[in-house]
């Protein structure tokens, strides 16, 4: 294909997008809707992942010890736990320190709650605080520690606790969001593809006579196909660009709002747009164009058989 032929195909593709008016608008809109939802989900999942990464470093296991555990046994236990490959850090929290921490955590209202408890009648047991490398291994590590108890005749471990439920729900929620997002996006992308296929079909029907004349004067299928290819890519590309504009402006507003609102800003920090715009924009554009080309290919194939 020489350059002037390529220009001709480009011109025909553009012309066709305008000629089909509302059909083109419908296809572009469907592309926008599906890509917008995809974009929102990607940003959501990305932010949630960021949050869970943060939560990971805060997740720890508390191993409470029996009252009568000797120092040597405690140290032995400590070294056994720190040898596990999943464990990153282990610290000993004597019961007095535990009480102090508890007081701090409960804050002003809690002071009264713990009134009357002092070092001599401290109800808390001594504890080992275990941190793991990967938050998802917490339940597994906790089980392993519990199993250690049976290896000692003294049964030194009173209880193993971790913020299990919180973590598990967090993981379940992110997984759920991800799965729903994927299904929704796939369905919408399919819909967009069909709408584009339909738009191109209208173009082809309107130009059937033109196509038959082209074939009579010796046009190859490739020559006939190109303008439709370009039309599909244009529909997808325009849809993607509009989506990117809407998504980025909207997200920027959200980041601003979250930062300026004090109560939200301290709780959640959103990933700044500058960190994602390049790959997210690129991804949406490529997807849009691909859906467009796919749609056009589907509808041309049948028409070129003769």
């Amino acid at each position: 294909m020489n350059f002037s032929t390529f220009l001709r195909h480009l011109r025909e593709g553009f012309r066709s997008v305008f000629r089909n008016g509302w059909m083109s608008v419908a296809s572009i809109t469907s592309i926008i809707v599906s890509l917008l939802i995809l974009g929102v989900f990607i940003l959501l999942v990305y932010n949630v992942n960021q949050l869970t990464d943060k939560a990971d470093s805060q997740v720890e296991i508390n191993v409470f010890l029996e009252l009568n555990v000797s120092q040597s046994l405690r140290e032995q236990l400590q070294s056994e736990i720190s040898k596990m490959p999943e464990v990153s850090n282990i610290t000993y929290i004597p019961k007095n320190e535990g009480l102090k921490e508890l007081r701090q955590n409960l804050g002003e209202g809690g002071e009264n709650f713990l009134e009357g408890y002092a070092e001599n009648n401290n109800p808390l047991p001594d504890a080992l605080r275990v941190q793991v490398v990967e938050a998802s291994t917490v339940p597994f590590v906790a089980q392993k520690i519990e199993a250690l108890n049976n290896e000692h005749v003294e049964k030194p471990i009173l209880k193993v606790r971790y913020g299990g439920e919180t973590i598990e729900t967090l993981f379940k929620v992110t997984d759920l969001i991800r799965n729903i997002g994927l299904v929704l996006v796939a369905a919408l992308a399919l819909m967009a593809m069909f709408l584009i296929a339909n738009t191109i079909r209208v173009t082809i029907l309107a130009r059937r006579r033109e196509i038959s004349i082209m074939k009579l004067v010796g046009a190859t299928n490739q020559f006939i196909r190109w303008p439709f290819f370009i039309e599909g890519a244009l529909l997808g590309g325009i849809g993607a660009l509009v989506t990117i504009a809407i998504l980025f402006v909207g997200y920027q507003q959200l980041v601003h709002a979250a930062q300026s609102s004090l109560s939200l800003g301290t709780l959640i920090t959103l990933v700044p747009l500058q960190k994602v715009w390049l790959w997210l924009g690129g991804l949406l554009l490529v997807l849009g164009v691909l859906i467009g080309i796919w749609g056009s290919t589907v509808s041309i194939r049948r028409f070129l058989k003769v």
Partner: protein
Amino acid sequence: MIEMQDVWKTYANGAHALQGVSVKIDRNEFVYVVGPSGAGKSTFMKLMYREEKPTKGQISVNGFNLGKLKQRKIPLLRRNIGVVFQDFRLLPKLTAYENIAFAMEVIEAPRKQMKKRVMEVLELVGLQSKANRYPDHLSGGEQQRIAIARAIVNNPSVIIADEPTGNLDPETSFGIMQLLDEINFRGTTIIMATHNKDIVNSMRRRVLAIENGQIVRDQIRGEYGYEF
């Protein structure tokens, strides 16, 4: 240059359009194809530019074996054949000039050459002054001249014309025939299906008469031979 050997064509609905047609047409011949409606003339024409495929038999056009021609090679065959129809088949949204240039765009001719060649054929058909008119603003005869210009613009070796004067009055028809004669004189083979008795009888050329899917007459400088 065009040769058929025992060609049969049966359509999917069971109609036997051609039944054992054998014929040979040499370079630079001018051939009329005559016969009653539905006798197989159109099928005979369509087989030559591979609009239809023979059910049985051999067809060779310009060295292409049409029975074995692959789908994607068909464009190559057609670039060497110009086709002209009763209903002109011009593109209504393009000007006369653009309609002719279209045939050159399709074969990806260089721009420079395109302009020169289109003006050349417009001159040959005598319509340079109407190059920028749309088909709507041209008479039937003028539209057919543009269609013929489009058919010859890529210098095909054969022109296949299916009732090119079918929609035209006698005077205009003779103009078109003079044009086709001129093109034939310049070295292009012309095969023309027609119902026009006056033309066939006054401009004597080879006549093939088809009836019931068979060639019943093949006459050099023949006559029309039917009363309608």
